[in-house]
């Protein structure tokens, strides 16, 4: 194995890690951008996605079905939660209520998952078609990780184009900038919020299903991921979708190369990157300073 193939393998590994992180971070940043809510339950929603995906795959025998069912189910749960619990609080100015509510959702969902699926971890097997390896410059690399990179890229472009080129995307951006004005113009802002919250949850659930063949579905799988996602959102800029893409890639690379070259500092490097970004651009790379 030569140095070039080694570096390429590490870069691909970093991109596959970034893809998983993107799915959770983009939902987090969209929810914050539209609703100014820091969703503490996002990590548990990611975990719920993995468990729902496990059950869907078990019942249907298909990983593809899991990729479709989990975001739909978890997205619907997210919309219901927003509609029932968050909507009555929009008139309040204190953000503490949202924090407590989403934190409460995280606790309740965690316990529900433990009651429904038990403490035993659940294995979601890598689909047969994605099980092999490809040799890239004499370096074996899993097809499944290439699939993650491809899917992450496709999802990133699709959501970006949706936000930039469709009327619904225009409304979402408008609500994120001035919801009162959009409401005055006759748009149902509450509906936009519900849809975005549900979409953010669905993206996190998709990330959970995709992560399950790498780490299995287990209690607590969302705890660390959500911290990574918060760091990404801060690096990219709170509420910036493109920022979440850039942040995911940066964190993915820092995690992979940091783990290889600076073992003892692997965890600290991500936070160091965040600190540097905040010093240079306090609002994040593509965010606005408030």
């Amino acid at each position, binding site marked *: *194995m030569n140095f070039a193939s080694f570096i390429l393998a590490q870069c691909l*590994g970093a991109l596959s890690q970034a893809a998983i992180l993107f799915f959770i971070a983009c939902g987090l940043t969209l929810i914050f951008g539209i609703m100014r809510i820091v969703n503490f339950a996002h990590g548990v929603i990611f975990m719920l996605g993995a468990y729902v995906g496990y059950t869907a795959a078990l019942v249907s025998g298909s990983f593809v079905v899991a990729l479709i069912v989990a975001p739909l189910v978890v997205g619907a749960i997210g919309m219901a939660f927003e509609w029932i619990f968050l909507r009555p609080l929009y008139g309040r100015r204190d953000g503490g209520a949202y924090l407590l509510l989403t934190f409460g959702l995280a606790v309740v969902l965690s316990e529900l998952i433990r009651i429904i699926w038990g403490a035993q971890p659940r294995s979601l097997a890598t689909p047969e078609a994605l099980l092999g*390896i490809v040799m890239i410059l004499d370096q*074996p*690399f899993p097809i499944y990780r290439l699939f993650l990179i491809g899917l992450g890229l496709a999802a990133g472009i699709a959501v970006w184009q949706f936000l930039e080129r469709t009327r619904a995307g225009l409304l979402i951006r408008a609500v994120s900038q001035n919801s009162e004005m959009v409401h005055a113009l006759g748009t149902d802002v509450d509906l936009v919020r519900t849809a975005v919250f549900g979409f953010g949850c669905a993206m996190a659930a998709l990330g959970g299903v995709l992560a399950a*063949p790498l*780490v299995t579905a287990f209690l607590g799988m969302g705890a*660390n991921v959500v911290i990574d996602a918060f760091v990404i959102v801060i690096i990219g800029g709170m509420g910036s979708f493109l920022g979440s893409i850039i942040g995911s890639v940066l964190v993915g690379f820092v995690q*992979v190369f940091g783990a290889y070259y600076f073992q003892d500092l692997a965890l600290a490097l991500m936070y160091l990157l965040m600190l540097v970004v905040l010093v240079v651009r306090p609002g994040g790379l593509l965010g606005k300073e408030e």
Partner: protein
Amino acid sequence: MTQHTETRRRILKGAVAASALAAAPAYLKAQANPIKIGIPTVITGGYALLGSQVMRTCRLVKKMTDARGGVLGRPVEFLFQDTQGDPAICVRKTQELVERDNCRILSGVIVSSEAAAMLPKLESWSAVFLSHGNGDGRLTAELFVPRFFRANTSAPMGARALALYLKDAPQKKFMAIASDAAWGRSSNTAFEAQIKRVGKDLVDKIYAPVANKDYSPYITKILQSGVEGCYVALQGDEARAFYSQAQQYRLSQRVQFFTEIVAQADIKVLGKDAIGLMGSSRYPVTYDIPQNKAFVDAFMAEYKEIPDWTDGEMYQALMILFAAIQKAGSDEPMKIVAAMEELEVTSVKGPVKMRKCDHQGENQGFVVRVGHDKRFSEPVGEIVKIYPREMTTPDCRSASYST
């Protein structure tokens, strides 16, 4: 005929009532004064699976022990607290067990750093703490306190058994990967010393952050190193993530894994990918002795599951504890301490001796290979070698070996 039957029934009823009355005071006394065992374990969080195993074994042991008449004629009572795997929370919750519930006998702690945080408090709590699974070698070495005992195989003991086996294995070059926690560091350090002693080459060692998710950089490093064997001191979520990702890289086709702990929960999740995995076993479910057979049968009848290493080690720890209480004739902590020193018990893992010098249980060393055993419905660790306890237990108050 009818009259005779009526008389017999009356006599029988009278006898049952009389024996119930005679037994009632003792029964009530026993109910009023159970032997309390505090179990500060992980109920929520990353190690919740291990905590759930501890709790289910405690419940089974209570059922079995109470059915036999209890310990010293008293029932046992387990009181559980959730430590979340956090040393600070563990100390706080244990303090509650001691002060509020008057529990002076403690066990079931999952994480070694939690156990280490408890040791300095034992004296002021007037408690005795029996480890069922804490692996960090330092607990019975430089961190030794008189009120702490370790019934289980420690990390250095697991690494030792594996190194003894690898002496004659074809692999010459090794890599080691461990969790960057007290247990993982203890395991890696012991393995490094042992593998070099048997003349093999440890090319490099890796410490992965606790709760790490992406093992691709480490797998690439192992691939790049050209080693033939890889020692893995990861457990639970970390182990499953590593093996799942290693399987995607087809790493097992190039490198033989030797794991510090072969866990049934991991085998169950990995399925056929686990076949061929070798390692040291804290508790080999396939060990064919009457004590283990009785435990496995009772466990599987109760839970319809194969007991994991935590179940076996917890069961062994409780059998040792009960033997010490019987020997002491009391559940007073310092009497238990005195009774447990030099205590010998034949448990599910065979003969175990709680040596006096550092309170480490001398356990046999087991090396297993995951395969199919017709007695079980899923793959299990099959014993390939057993090392006598004299060979696997480290020097006194030490995590290393002079021979």
